[in-house]
């Protein structure tokens, strides 16, 4: 029993806490001075403005966590139990995304069809390549995004990301109507307010979360970016195939490896499953005669894990 519980309690292992951090204490003292702790107050508004500056997307709506952000977005899009959603071929999903899809009892379709809601796990920055509304779940934030109004980007801000928060998320969307619905659904006024949403939720992002995120943006984010970029260059130099690092304009860099022969793909897929690599959200893309393997460089992708990848 204990082992069983510990396995799931692993989600609760606290990351580095900010007790000693002057920056964190500065923000938290503001929360206590305001005596307002819950949804969308002074610090959350500052954070959302900061995120808009970073992403260049018109609306950045903070949410309690990424699961609730995704489920809320799917509800707003009108997805119902038994509906199908499109997920691009080759996209390897995070556990939390699979959990949300199963929670809503949706069918996964791997062939693109404009009639059904699409989810795209974008390793790279989201882009406007789809005609209908779609949800993008990028693993990093591009500093100069330029997306169309169809894209709803859900950014996880937890400790696996450069934001290094305990829990948190934000949804970046240019569509004002969609953003309006998100805000209503977040604060639970969807049904009683002026915006009618068929099902309501609760995704409130607290002032304490905002204090954590702002501290992270001021301290950890730049450190992680710099550290991961160095790591990416180091990894690229070790790889026997051609490898490029794209990094400067992202909150964390990305390593793109070009494989010259298609047979490698089969081998790598099997090996990746063995090492449970889906948590690292490695994706594949066929580009003319090449296969691109995109490896996000997160804090958890250490030398040992990368060596395993190289050995494939």
């Amino acid at each position, binding site marked *: 029993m204990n082992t069983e519980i510990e396995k799931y309690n692993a989600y609760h292992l606290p990351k580095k806490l900010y007790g000693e951090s002057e920056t964190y204490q500065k923000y938290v003292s503001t929360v206590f001075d305001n005596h307002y702790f819950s949804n969308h107050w002074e610090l959350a508004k500052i954070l959302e403005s900061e995120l808009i500056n970073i992403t260049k997307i018109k609306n950045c709506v903070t949410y309690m966590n990424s699961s609730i952000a995704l489920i809320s977005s799917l509800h707003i899009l009108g997805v119902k139990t038994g509906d199908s959603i499109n997920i691009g071929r080759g996209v390897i999903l995070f556990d939390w995304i699979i959990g949300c899809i199963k929670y809503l009892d949706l069918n996964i379709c791997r062939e693109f069809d404009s009639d059904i809601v699409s989810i795209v796990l974008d390793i790279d920055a989201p882009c406007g390549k789809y005609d209908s509304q779609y949800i993008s779940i990028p693993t990093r934030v591009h500093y100069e995004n330029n997306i169309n109004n169809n894209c709803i980007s859900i950014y996880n801000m937890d400790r696996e990301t450069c934001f290094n928060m305990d829990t948190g998320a934000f949804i970046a969307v240019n569509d004002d109507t969609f953003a309006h619905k998100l805000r209503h659904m977040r604060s639970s006024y969807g049904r009683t307010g002026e915006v009618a949403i068929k099902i309501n939720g609760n995704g409130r992002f607290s002032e*304490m979360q905002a204090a954590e995120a702002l501290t992270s943006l001021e301290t950890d984010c730049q450190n992680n970016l710099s550290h991961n970029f160095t790591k990416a260059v180091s990894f690229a130099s070790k790889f026997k195939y051609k490898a490029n690092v794209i990094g400067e304009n992202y909150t964390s860099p990305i390593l793109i490896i070009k494989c010259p022969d298609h047979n490698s793909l089969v081998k790598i897929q099997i090996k990746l499953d063995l090492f449970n690599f889906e948590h690292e959200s490695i994706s594949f893309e066929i580009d003319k005669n090449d296969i691109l393997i995109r490896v996000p460089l997160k804090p958890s992708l250490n030398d040992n894990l990368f060596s395993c990848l190289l050995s494939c």
Partner: protein
Amino acid sequence: MKYKKSRCDFAINGGKEVFSPDCVKTTMNLPAPSFNNYIKKLLFCERESINSIDLLERSLAKFHDTKYAICFSSCFTGMAITMRALAISGKKEVILPSLTYRRMTDIILWSGLTPKYCDNNFTNLGVTSLEISKVINKDTALILAPHPMVHLSDIDSIEELSINTGIPIMFDSVEASGGSYKGRMLGSFGKAESFSLHPSKLMNACEGGYITTNDKNLYLALIKMRAGKSIEYNNSTRQGHLSKMNNYHAIMALCSLDMVQNIIEGNKIKYELYFKLLEDFQGISLVCYDRKEKRNYKTILIKVDEKLHLNRDILHDILNKENIFARKFYYPAQHVTHGKFLTKNYKEYEVACSLQEQYLLLPTGYSTSCKDIEIICSTIRQAIKLYSA
């Protein structure tokens, strides 16, 4: 004190408000530790490598005298996931009283189930087995019995009904947190009980909620579902979604738990003052807590006599204009707002319809001092006098 000598003195008629807009009085509890205590607790957890959520869960289980407490990102998600776990396989309907927390239907829908409203009980303002048994049918998956503000629903009769019918019961004990029934702390009745850690409640975690239970299998199921996993429970697969509590929220909750007795004592002082000041009011009666049991005293609920010329809605509007943010008790009933889930007609909800027109919540908690309470009661007294004439 700014007395109102005529109707024209009331803000609703253009007079000056008794409280300025930057000093509004609300019904929200808003308890909070000091900044220093919060940082002290945070540093303690950091230095000792303490898992704050684990510590909070153990502390809450002790507080409620239950075996297990499981924390969630919010009470909303905790309740939705627990309902999904507890619902009888293959059945969809959750029975709940129509007049209750306005988000309850949303929680049920979020869990993938369907609400089935019953009428409220006139005496306890919540529900008893009598109202529930009238709407039980072959598709009933779960009974959700919320404890209303101040009073409790009829725990004994509902538990007995649950045993006789085999339908699991979950108590929503958000408003009754810290209370007891027949000397036993709330937290271990039914299959599970839910509690909120929202700032407006007894304990403040900024955001969060928790479920208490003595059922080990349910506890294990909820731990996994909270991690976004699917589980086998009661012969079917149940899927959760990731909804862990934030560590910083857990630290805030631990601070709140440390001071909970002080919070209750502070609430009680304000309740006693209302009790004294409203004692001889014609047409207004304070809904009284059961002094033989433990109570949190965090809610001040009054009943406005229907025979008064000044009805509840007018009194509500008058007070709101004075920046006294009184709130209508659970208004509107959910059979009104979620009409598509009605089975027959409104007559089935006669008591809920009547109750929703009579009760009013008055300010208390962090924003309201004893001096403020005197001003609020004086304003009510003058309103009744001048508007009833």
